[in-house]
């Protein structure tokens, strides 16, 4: 069952000459983990912002084509209403914080939706647990680490019980511990809780391990859609052209194909495929 359907989607920002997205079509199934790859300006952020309705509802742009998310048409419903079904995480967690305590931060979205007090308390408890921040309720959102802030942003989104999570470079400002925290929470939300995940991310080694499918964007168009195993080996010689790196073991195995029984994209595969 597809939860996201995009057909021939074109987005042009006011005052820009070129299209940020240019005739993009794809579908995403329920429970899929999909990574968006591409250089800066390829359209990853615009695509994320179109899926949660921020474009064109809050950021002005002309939009053509069809887009459907969980049966809703994002441009046609208020962003706040869609946020209950589609949680969004951005690259600067501190910009998303506004409250004095972690508890209030998570409560904010629920209050805006008019959820009753008892449900709010239960949802906050559950969502903080999902991201491993139990016991942080009374802490200030500004005095916790970057990884904790980003997980708090995730908890705020999760409290509304969304079915889809959209993450736009969620780890680009985090240290290695913070990155690992955010990736592992994202993975367990996908695998244990069945959330559909759409993530724009440059860390290809991690993406190779987590993602079911990749959407490779280039100048606002889709260059290719497929599994990491299908996509990465094809682009070993075109990393510069597409502005995306491939995992190091993929490059190694492609250039030394006599030593490998296939082309790996993860470290485990590389070890298994290496002919000793």
């Amino acid at each position, binding site marked *: 069952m597809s939860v996201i359907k995009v057909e021939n989607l074109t987005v042009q920002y006011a005052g820009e000459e070129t299209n940020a997205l240019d005739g993009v079509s794809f579908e995403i199934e329920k429970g899929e983990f999909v990574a968006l790859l*591409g250089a*800066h300006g390829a359209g990853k952020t615009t695509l994320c912002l179109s899926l949660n309705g921020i474009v064109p509802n809050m950021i002005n742009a002309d939009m053509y084509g069809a887009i459907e998310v969980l049966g809703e048409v994002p441009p046609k419903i208020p962003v706040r209403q869609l946020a209950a079904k589609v949680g969004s995480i951005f690259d600067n967690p501190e910009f998303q914080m506004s409250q004095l305590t972690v508890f209030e931060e998570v409560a904010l979205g629920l209050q805006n939706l008019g959820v009753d007090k008892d449900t709010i308390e239960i949802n906050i408890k559950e969502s903080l647990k999902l991201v491993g921040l139990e016991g942080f309720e009374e802490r200030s959102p500004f005095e916790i680490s970057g990884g904790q802030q980003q997980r708090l942003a995730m908890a705020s989104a999760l409290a509304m019980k969304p079915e889809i999570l959209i993450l736009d470079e969620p780890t680009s400002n985090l240290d*290695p511990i*913070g990155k690992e925290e955010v990736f592992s929470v994202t993975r367990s939300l996908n695998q244990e809780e069945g959330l559909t995940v759409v993530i724009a991310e440059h860390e290809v*080694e991690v993406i190779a391990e987590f993602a079911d499918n990749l959407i490779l964007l280039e100048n606002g168009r889709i260059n290719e859609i497929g599994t990491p195993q299908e996509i990465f080996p094809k682009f070993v010689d075109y990393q*510069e052209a597409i502005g995306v790196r491939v995992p*190091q073991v993929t490059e*190694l195995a492609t250039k030394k194909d006599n030593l490998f029984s296939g082309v790996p994209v993860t470290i485990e595969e590389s070890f298994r495929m*290496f002919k000793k």
Partner: protein
Amino acid sequence: MTNIKVANLQHTYPNGVVAVENVDVEIKQGEQISVVGQNGSGKTTLVKHWNGLLKPTQGTVHIGELETSEHSVNVLARKVGYVFQNPNHQIFAASVQDELEFGLRNIGNSEEEIKEKVVAISEEFGLTEYLATNPYRLGFSLRKTVGMASIIAMEPDVIVLDEPTTGQDYLGIKAIRSSIKKLKEQGKTVIVVSHDMPLVAEETDRVLVMCDTNLIFDGTPSKLFSDQSILSQTNLLPPQITSFMQKVNIGVEGESFLSVDDALKAL
């Protein structure tokens, strides 16, 4: 020639938090150094002593002949250029041209020298077509390039790059790496503060690892990535290619492979 000498450095912030202690380190002109460690380990505090943004609360820091506690940032900045992680904290001029000119004028270049140097640096960094543009109209990656170019234009002996590859895509990272290579050829000291292990492995010769306010490792990337105790203590993850070569047991004890090219040669 600007060597850096840190002796028994301690830095305690006004609120009483000790951010760095017991650090002794010497950096020679022309070295390519990386400073790594988790956020809060003290690495940024350490590095900010090298252009005088912070002064030791105990111990001394020498930049060449100058003891930093006796000189202002203005004087020290001519020797050590600091490129901020977030270009928005650094850039304030209304055009790329003005931004590049500002530092040059500030350190006393003539108008003629300024003109020449701006032409040269903007060509080097691919900024020529943006000279009239407001830096805030540029994307993050290009804005970061402007921040870097405006510091390098002043030709300091030492250049500190704070998280240069954060938020950059593959091409942005490539551009930064080639700038580092060029600076190395010019004999500059390059110090990168970074979580980007492939960058650390491939572009620097010596790594300083900070952990809980202390300098706990000072050696080559090759040694660092073979030192399991330091890696687990600091949660550092070697590049994927390094881990692969370790897993298949190729190479010598105590050293590591640092790049795909390295590994290709050995296989």
